[in-house]
């Protein structure tokens, strides 16, 4: 089977994944889908936690604790959003490449069959 090459444009320029088995690509897409769900689930928990942040008392230290907690959650949410974007992009690239390859393969098979009919 010919190799299925998928250009990895970000973050490294010129990077390239090579697959020799289409089933392998399918399984990687499934793994990434599962990963994306976990990232979404984590993001959901982080957002919900922001809404539930409470200071244990009214003194300055307690207020500062919530501010630090909130800032930390916001950073985690940004990281979570970037992770979700990265995984989504990877799934899109792999799906597009798989679809493109399958389409090309089907077209080539049809051409070969057509040639066979003409030769007969």
């Amino acid at each position, binding site marked *: 089977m010919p190799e299925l090459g998928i250009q990895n444009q970000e973050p490294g320029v010129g990077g390239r994944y090579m697959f020799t088995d289409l089933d392998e690509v399918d399984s990687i897409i499934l793994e990434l889908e599962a990963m994306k769900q976990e990232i979404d689930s984590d993001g*959901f928990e982080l957002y919900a936690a922001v*809404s539930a942040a409470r200071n244990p008392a009214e003194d300055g230290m307690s207020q500062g604790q919530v501010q630090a907690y909130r800032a930390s959650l916001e950073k985690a949410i940004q990281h979570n959003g970037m992770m979700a974007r990265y995984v989504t992009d990877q799934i899109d690239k792999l799906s597009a490449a798989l679809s493109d390859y399958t389409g090309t393969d089907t077209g080539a098979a049809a051409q070969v069959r057509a040639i066979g009919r003409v030769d007969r």
Partner: protein
Amino acid sequence: MRAHRALTAVAAVALAVTGCTTTEAGVATPGTVADSTSTSTSEPTSEVPRVNDPLDASRYIVDPCAVLTQAQLASYGVSRNGRPDTASASAEYSGPSCLWFGQEVDAAIGVVWQTTNENGLSDTYGLQEDFATWEHFEATEVDNYPAVFTNLDGDAEFGNCGLVVGISDTLTFYVLLQGHSKIDGEASCNRVMQVATAVIQKLKENP
């Protein structure tokens, strides 16, 4: 837990005695939550919209994924079952929730019953007033119930949008859409509003 909760309970009783600004059912109107007898500095000084026609969500706090029907979810591009969370540390801290993962439309939709908001939307306003928690804090209404968009600076970029809706003076629910950078913030917030409206409708039809 915020130290002012007990004081707010006093404030809520005082408000119940003094009454709201209108008696029309289901219309959210501003009313002052902070009580003049309260000594807490954490009570929101701004006017917090009151809920005039409270809804009972106890059924869905126990079974959070039942609040949206499969037909409703299908219209949001969701065909998979939701993932309920009623027992984790997160559920204990933030409230019971359900998270649905989109399939046809690339987005995740979550609803949290914010049982820790014992003073309803007043707690959300208090959080904003005390800590400027959200960079984008915009009051709105969902089917005549008071609500507020609560979003951070980067949310629109990621296609995320959050909305807190007050359904009684002791309970809110939170809707979050995670758009994976595939939709813009405005489209995300429009979808969140649709989901929140569907939740309110469900609460009215099947309390």
